């Protein structure tokens, strides 16, 4: 049974460093007053135009196995493939920050308000990731038993199209979760509309891993966001 999580824009207001990272600006970089003003303006627009909603549902290992294997196109060896069978909890989720903000970004580009459009886009992407963090934290607070929490499990997030989970995995994920209920549709290319939408699986496991170089996808990965997220969650969420 899927639950819907309604959020507010302030719930998912992105961190400044995350916006800067999306703009390719290193943390600690001194910015001009014009760029600072753009970020402030973009955050204001974000606040007024985003309408975040998420849908999530726990699944059993056997249900997830069917969803994960999707159309049979995953990499042969993936972190998720090696992890999910030992998971204590698996939750499917999809979320969107709404259509209006995407339309706003396009409109700004069309009006040649290029800089604000670019900064708002970076803000919206960071906001969508923050919304996924929020879903994770919500599930942790509400659904994870005190007993499991005592064992200090790790929490990971995977998405079709990343980490060796082929993007065609979206098809079965959508069939199971029905994100149409919160206004997300899946295009034939497996892309979600509205643009600033995310989907995936949250894995709670007592079998910790930083994945190292055992997986080709980890060797090629340049962000290692999974490790950063894990650290942040341990410090503030877990």
């Amino acid at each position: 049974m899927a639950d819907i999580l309604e959020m507010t824009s302030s719930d998912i207001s992105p961190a400044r460093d995350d916006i800067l990272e999306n703009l390719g600006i290193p943390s600690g970089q001194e910015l001009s007053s014009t760029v600072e003003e753009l970020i402030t303006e973009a955050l204001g627009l974000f606040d007024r135009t985003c309408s975040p909603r998420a849908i999530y549902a726990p699944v059993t290992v056997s249900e997830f196995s069917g969803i994960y294997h999707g159309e049979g196109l995953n990499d042969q060896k993936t972190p998720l493939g090696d992890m999910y069978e030992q998971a204590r909890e698996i939750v499917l989720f999809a979320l969107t920050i709404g259509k209006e903000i995407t339309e706003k970004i396009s409109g700004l580009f069309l009006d040649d308000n290029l800089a604000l459009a670019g900064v708002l886009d970076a803000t919206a992407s960071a906001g969508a990731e923050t919304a996924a963090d929020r879903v994770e934290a919500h599930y942790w607070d509400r659904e994870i038993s005190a007993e499991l929490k005592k064992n200090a499990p790790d929490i990971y997030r995977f998405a079709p199209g990343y980490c060796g989970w082929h993007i065609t995995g979206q098809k079965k994920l959508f069939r199971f979760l029905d994100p149409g209920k919160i206004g997300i549709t899946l295009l034939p290319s497996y892309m979600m509309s509205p643009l600033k939408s995310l989907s995936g699986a949250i894995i709670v496991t007592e079998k910790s891993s930083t994945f190292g170089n055992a997986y080709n996808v980890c060797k090629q990965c340049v962000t290692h966001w999974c490790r950063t997220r894990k650290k942040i969650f341990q410090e503030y969420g877990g």
Partner: protein
Amino acid sequence: MEILDRISEMLQRGDTGKVSALVKESLTENIPAKQVLDGGLIRGMQVIGEQYRLHEIFLPDVLLAAKAMYAGMDILKPSFIKEGMPSLGKVVIGTVQGDLHDIGKNLVGIMLKGAGFEVIDLGNNVAPESFVETARKERASVIGMSALLTTTMPVMAQVVELLKAQRLVGTIKTIIGGAPVTKEYAQEIGADAYSFDSADAVETVKALVKPA
């Protein structure tokens, strides 16, 4: 010429108001519009493009400068009514069918305009026929395609095949880019070029339109 240096400098600062005022002033001083375009606006954007390529400045700085450039170009446009805006060539760009991402494509368009190309932006979710038909009608030299999904990359191959079928290969060159796209993929599908970012795209398109 000092006023052209100032236009270039103000453009690099992203000061739209000052660029507009200086472009108007240079026309009042009877400086030819082509000279203002090349020696002020495009020269300023070239500096911006190079600084961005070297990571000395960042995306918002490029976008602020581009906005200033567009404002300057709008003032110059009436001066080019008879012969049309001078350009290095026409480039049709778009994000391929099935893909709605367009920030990267927009940035490529901005940088190409800044370098002096005429850009026809078809937006996102563009059908292969639309790329070819527009490029043919507009007599464009280059089609630029962007894809952010592995599932939509085959559309790029379809465009190349359509060009082959219409015997337009060589007349209309193709350049592809986007997160999952590689140089090897460009070679595999017979695209003329691959580019990894917007600054590189400008240099690559310049090379594509250069007479052999």
